[in-house]
């Protein structure tokens, strides 16, 4: 997210003053309302369909249910306390977490704006941010698909929102310590993708593989559904990245261009790898390459030019392809839908590369204070690593905690029968 539209946010101080009365710009507001709709669209139905098509037919509903339920409970918790902790004033501890002053959105009305974004109403700003908080835990679903119990999933997701997503979002976008350092993460390379990606890896390891993995083939049951979801993700990502400009201007346009270019390049790079290695390009390949390109450009999207975006996209498609082979085939970790090698690896790479291609010399936009490239690179690396470490550690603790309260996995019989019948007493298809 572009940090500080109205005036620079350089720490906790400035946030003490909000909300202030100011006239929002109708054009910027129009775009942010739209962008909010687009990012929700990414999760529902976008990501839900993308994931649902990839599992076996007997688990299709369980995945849709997870995405839908996460959207519901995250929204409720965001209104109750999430927004306050992420973007509220944290007082003395503002470097690490926001405060409780905005619990239940206290003080919000139609005229309110956020100090850092006086060009749009605060209601729009917090809605836009809510959609990010929804999609991030929903991404993790891909790791434990086809075996996690519903209740455990629900508990895990709420705790993960509160203890992993919100702190990291605060550090980077809410005026926390990474923001103060000048860490650049335009639309969530660290906050969303590294965060969800590494949590997925940890979850896959803690839960263990699906029964039959890797001997038994587990092909996607409905690739057209996955492609439908992929198309929605691509379109929705315009809201994600270009919306992170928090304005309808040239910066949003440049972000959209970078986003689109990287997606296209990710597609292309992935199918080239497939063509070289397997002799045939595939549909699942091209949509995975697309997601890799989009995830990787996300942190950089507001800072790089089209050339940088092309380079990042090509790298994304190539590196994430090999990472997927490595994690799934070599390490035999059953991160069911490859969340880590695509989002985790892509997000990390993109966050670091933001320090490279986000330089005027390479067609990007130099950091404001004339910081050296090597310094920025260090900051990027630090931020990416801190996110990785925090998310990995806390995810692990949460899973152990949940496991102490309720079993994480369904029984072997339930897994064989399929989660749809076992957990929800419904079947996906009666054709």
């Amino acid at each position, binding site marked *: 997210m572009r940090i500080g539209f109205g005036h620079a946010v350089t720490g906790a101080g400035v946030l003490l003053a909000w909300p202030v009365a100011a006239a929002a710009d109708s054009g910027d507001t129009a775009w942010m309302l739209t962008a909010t709709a687009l990012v929700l669209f990414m999760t529902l139905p976008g990501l839900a369909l993308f994931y649902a098509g990839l599992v076996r037919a007997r688990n299709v509903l369980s995945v849709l249910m997870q995405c839908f339920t996460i959207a519901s409970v995250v929204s409720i918790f965001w209104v109750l306390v999430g927004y306050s902790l992420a973007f509220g004033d944290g007082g003395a501890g503002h470097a690490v977490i926001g405060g409780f002053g905005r619990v239940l959105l206290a003080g919000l009305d139609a005229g309110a704006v956020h100090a850092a974004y006086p060009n749009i109403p605060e209601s729009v700003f917090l809605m836009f941010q809510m959609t990010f908080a929804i999609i991030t835990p929903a991404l993790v679903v891909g790791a434990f698909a086809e075996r996690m119990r519903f209740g455990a999933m629900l508990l895990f997701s709420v705790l993960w929102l509160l203890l992993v997503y919100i702190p990291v979002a605060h550090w980077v976008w809410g005026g926390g310590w990474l923001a103060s350092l000048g860490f650049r993460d335009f639309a969530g390379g660290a906050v969303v993708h590294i965060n969800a990606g590494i949590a997925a890896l940890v979850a896959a390891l803690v839960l263990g593989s699906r029964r039959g993995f890797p001997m038994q083939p*587990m092909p996607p049951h409905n690739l057209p559904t996955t492609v439908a979801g992929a198309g929605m993700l691509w379109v929705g990502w315009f809201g994600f990245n270009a919306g992170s400009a928090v304005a309808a201007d040239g910066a949003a346009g440049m972000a959209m261009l970078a986003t689109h270019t990287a997606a296209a390049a990710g597609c292309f790079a992935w199918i080239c790898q497939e063509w070289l290695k*397997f002799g045939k390009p*595939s549909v*699942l390949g091209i949509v995975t390459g697309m997601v890799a390109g989009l995830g990787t450009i996300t942190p950089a999207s507001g800072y790089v030019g089209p050339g940088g975006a092309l380079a990042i996209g090509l790298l994304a498609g190539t590196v994430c392809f090999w990472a*997927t082979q490595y994690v*799934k*085939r070599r390490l035999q970790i059953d991160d069911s839908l490859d969340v880590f090698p695509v989002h985790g690896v892509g997000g990390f790479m993109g966050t670091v590369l933001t320090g490279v291609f986000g330089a005027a010399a390479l067609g990007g936009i130099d950091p404001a204070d004339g910081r050296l490239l090597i310094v920025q690179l260090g900051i990027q690396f630090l931020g990416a690593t801190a996110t990785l470490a925090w998310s990995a550690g806390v995810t692990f603790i949460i899973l152990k905690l949940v496991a102490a309260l309720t079993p994480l996995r369904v029984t072997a019989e339930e897994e064989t029968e399929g989660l749809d019948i076992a957990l929800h007493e419904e079947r996906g298809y009666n054709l």
Partner: protein
Amino acid sequence: MKLITAIIKPFRLDDVRNALAEVGVNGMTVTEVKGFGRQRGHTELYRGAEYVVDFLPKAKVEVAVADDLVERAIEAITAAARTGKVGDGKIFVIDLEQALRIRTGEAGDSAL
């Protein structure tokens, strides 16, 4: 009466139906099945997870015929289903003790 069961390549189904009609067989029941045999299946590949699908789509055609029609029916199926390549399929013949038409209760040859 005999029950003839033919496992054939699906895209030959219409030809087989027509060939049977020509020899006077006017009813049949068809099931989509998966066949495993000498014919090689195909490979599928999903994000590098490769696996071989040995089961190939086949159509199973079941026809109950009077004894005097058996030979001609078999010949008709064989001629219509043959492509000459591996996987053309099999024909099985079983003795049929009784046949009934549900609507009328007719039994035997006239039920077919």
